[in-house]
């Protein structure tokens, strides 16, 4: 079933419409390990390949909470324990003046979590990826749309999968060497 030298089969499409339709059909035909590639985000494409939820938002929440708490804790510790300075008899724990730094730290950590979390979940930076072995894939950042069925899919079978993809009326079907 699995061929070690093949990463998968790649079908090339001309429009976003065709890609989404093909992705729907491939996914409902029972293929699980598939991916679609487009030069810009297409609404509904991730749903079509069965990818509904991502955890970026959760990471941002965690980042924000850590940033806010550590920002406030740092100010509390510095102002009341490590370096208390009496200014006009005001309390050491003068919380209203700690709000701004707490806010900034929340935003900073949440924002960094959004950017780096997104990159980490996407597995980027990734110096090598087999899809780039297909010459036509250079157009994936231009005006072409691609659908790949990975050879690790349990339903994957070189000849039959190729026939199936051809049935979706793509421009071309090519093998992706790993």
């Amino acid at each position, binding site marked *: 079933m699995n061929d070690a030298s093949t990463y998968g089969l790649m079908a090339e499409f001309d*429009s*976003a*419409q065709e890609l*989404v*339709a093909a*992705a729907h*059909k491939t996914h409902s035909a029972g293929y699980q390990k598939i*991916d*679609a*590639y*487009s*030069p*810009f*985000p*297409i*609404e*509904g*494409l*991730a749903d079509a*390949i069965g*990818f509904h939820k*991502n955890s*970026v938002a959760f990471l*941002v929440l965690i980042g924000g909470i850590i940033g806010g708490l550590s920002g406030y804790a*740092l*100010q509390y510790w*510095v*102002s009341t324990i*490590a*370096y208390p*300075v009496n200014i006009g008899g*005001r309390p050491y724990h003068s919380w209203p003046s*700690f709000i*701004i*730094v707490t*806010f*900034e*730290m929340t*935003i*900073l950590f*949440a*924002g960094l979590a*959004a*950017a780096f979390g*997104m*990159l980490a*979940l*996407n597995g*980027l*930076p990734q*110096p*090598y*990826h087999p*899809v*780039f072995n297909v010459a036509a894939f250079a*157009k*994936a*950042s*231009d*005006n072409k749309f691609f659908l790949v069925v990975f050879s690790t899919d349990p339903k994957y079978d070189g000849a039959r999968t190729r026939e199936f993809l051809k049935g979706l009326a793509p421009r071309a079907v090519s093998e992706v060497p790993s």
Partner: protein
Amino acid sequence: MATNTQIPVADRRAPVIEPGHSFSTIGEKISNIVLKRPISLGWVFGFFVVFSLMNVLLLALGYLFLKGTGIWGITIPIGWGFAIINFVWWIGIGHAGTLISAILCLLRQSWRNSINRFAEAMTLFAVACAGIFPLAHTGRPWLAYWMFPYPNTMGYWPQFRSPLIWDVFAVSTYFTISLVFWFVGLIPDLATLRDRAEHPLTRGIYGILAMGWRGSARHWHRYETAYLLLAGLATPLVLSVHTVVSFDFAVSIVPGWHTTIFPPYFVAGAIYSGFAMVLCLAIPIRAIYGLEDFITMRHLENSGKVMLATGLIVGYGYGIEAFMGWYSGNTFDAFLLWNRLHGPYSAWYLGLIASNIVIPQLLWMKKFRTSTFWLWMISLVVLAGMWLERFIIIVVSLHRDFLNSSWGMYYPTKWDFMTFFGTIGMFLTAMWLFVRILPMVSISELRTLLPEAHVHEAAEVEK
């Protein structure tokens, strides 16, 4: 966000993107500016000019580090002078970039897609210019890291009750988040450049920067979530930054500074000057690089409208300041108002009113909003006016202290001017390089403006 944008049909306004473009022509047109367009003599000459101006900054800073802040015109009672005027001015200019990229993104204003990239670049460069001033103003910039909380042998920690420390956190967070937001937006376009580049070295550099982006549907899904959340985080951040800058003033007890109107009035002023800078740059850039198809009259006109609206808020701020000077019955506040109108800097105050309040009213008329020449001229006037505003706020408030014995005048020296114009050189040098090195319009976001980028549910079901 990109996916919910549509081209208005049967709209009397100019389109967001001129007809006749496809996914490919957008990529080609924008990436060719970076990859194919030869370096023109005009570019080299312009670069020579702005780079020379940047070297004036290096000279001025070098001498400052040697001699100290005594080379500037700051004396007591005017201890803030040019350094803080320019800091607030530059930070304000930066605000338009984040407003365009974050707030307009949340408000689903699709027209922002063609100007957000270079507006964000403008933000970064402006904040970098701004950062120089408070750093140099400390007098010992090599000890500036003392402002950050870190364990040290002196057993010393920053004073978190001070607005100046809030400013350190606000501005450094702002710069970091703006940089991250900008870079995240760039990743798909860097992949486009990587795939279009012909020279192996160019391909290699853009390839490394694109980090292996391949446009996978899973990646786009996470990318869009991250981008939307960054926009959501940057929105309160941008409003907070100039608020915190205004706290540097408002938390003190100096007449003319100690008012509650300062935060909203500063934020509006920041966006006002920022849009003026966007227009100031966009109008020549679109003409030189033939980007009229993407940066259309619609964008310029909308920016003009934002300027008009924020300008009116600033005008309201001036009005309230004057009203409170009279209504509060406070002698010092009343004197400040009188001094602004009749004191030694009254000409500057009238210049401020003319350039920030009177002249921009021309933008009510469509004729001025749709003329590149007039928009450009009004933007320059507003930029000058917003600089004057900070001059009035700082110098006029400080030069008449509570006691007559502490009155003084402010005379900037040539080093003040060299530092100021030098940062303009630094800003323009960075812009000069940016337009030739990175795609100045977002390719992937512009593509989503085309009707064929949207998948129709009906057709999906039918297949």
